[in-house]
């Protein structure tokens, strides 16, 4: 069998190695009689690099040699490869979120008064990181506590046009009868654009 082009031998070695190879290391892949000179190797790597134009991979030189890597433009998809299964939010978090939705603008102290227990800082942080609540001002009392309200993302995530679409507090007493037209789909069914923004 005739020998394949040098660039493909390097492609094979780099992808099989799954990491960088130095030029010295690349030379050890060849039998003593046919070791390519380093300029030849660099040339072949350049050709390979050209072949990869527009593809998902690229040839880059790093500290320990050359490697083939996935272009960062693909990070969004690739990241999801390793996505961990989503956890579940605690009851405390959901209650806090519900109180903010219904009583906004509301301070943490007021939430605690309603719930009868303290609200942890991590719950408030999680809700803010998720983009569902934000600080809308500060109550003019000693300590100037922050007041929280829900965000546009909150409405989007739950597929609501406005908070008015939520059942009133009175109606909440009998949850299953209220608002038959209300979209009570589970978020899994909701299109992703509304989830990810």
């Amino acid at each position: 069998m005739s020998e394949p082009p040098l660039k493909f031998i390097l492609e094979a070695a780099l992808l099989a190695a799954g990491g960088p190879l130095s030029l010295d290391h690349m030379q050890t892949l060849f039998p003593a009689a046919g070791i390519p000179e380093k300029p030849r190797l660099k040339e072949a790597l350049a050709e390979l690099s050209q072949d990869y134009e527009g593809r998902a991979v690229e040839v880059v030189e790093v500290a320990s040699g050359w490697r083939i890597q996935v272009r960062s433009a693909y990070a969004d998809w690739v990241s999801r490869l390793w996505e961990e299964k989503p956890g579940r939010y605690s009851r405390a978090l959901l209650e806090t979120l519900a109180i903010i939705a219904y009583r906004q603008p509301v301070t943490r102290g007021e939430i605690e008064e309603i719930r009868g227990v303290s609200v942890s800082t991590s719950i408030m942080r999680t809700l803010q990181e998720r983009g569902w609540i934000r600080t809308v001002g500060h109550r003019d009392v000693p300590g100037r506590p922050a007041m929280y309200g829900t965000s546009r993302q909150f409405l989007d995530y739950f597929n609501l046009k406005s908070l008015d679409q939520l059942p009133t507090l009175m109606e909440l007493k009998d949850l299953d009868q209220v608002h038959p037209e209300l979209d009570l789909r589970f978020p899994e069914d909701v299109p992703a654009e509304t989830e990810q923004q």
Partner: protein
Amino acid sequence: MTEGVEAAELLADDPARLRALVRGEPLKELPHDLYIPPDALEVFLETFEGPLDLLLYLIRRQNLDVLDIPIASITKQYMEYVELMKDLRLELAAEYLVMAAMLAEIKSRMLLPRPPVDEEEDIDPRAELVRRLQEYERYKTAAEDLDVLPRQGRDVFPAAAPAPGAEPRQREPEVSLRELLGALAEVLGRAEMFTHHHVRKEALSVRERMSRTLEQLNSEEFTAFADLLNPEEGRLGVVVGFLAILELIKASLIELVQTEPFAPIYLRARA
């Protein structure tokens, strides 16, 4: 991605290391019926995978069909090998000896005259041996076929490339509206908010608008009242905006300034 080192015993032995020794002496003379070169003998002795393997070898060496085994000569050759092996690998001998006994039995049965009465039912005494030999040969061949299949790490190699910038991500938990409302219903039940928190039939959009209005205001500068009400929202929108401002004033969250009657009204958050 290397194959890793297998347990030494699983690696095929290096043939160069093998020496056939008989009673401690290197084998010089070969049994008369062994028509194989000495080097090959050394290897074979080490690599027979048991009595069936050895028998198959003896049969194949003479280009014979498994279905037509010359029992007498095969038995004789088999015994010679077993003698050799007894000297080399005592622990293997037991299984080989069982086979030797079986061969001897078949041979003797074939020597005996058959009683004419069970002519119909008479079965070839070799039948069971043939069945086992065939069965073994199938898997021996299958193992050889398996060995030449392209293998990961030997013939083909998984292609991998690092993906800088792609990080494992924790996916956000999902929440359904039902869950959210359920949580609220529960907390309300617990807090008996219906009495305690004098809940009115209050449009939630007012509360929402209160949040939004508060965000628009700050304590450093005043915002014109009119700027907070957008006529494009329609009559209802303006009413909701107005109610929100009234609620905020009532809750002392904002302050309202008017320098003289009919002058523009300004609002700011209470510092």
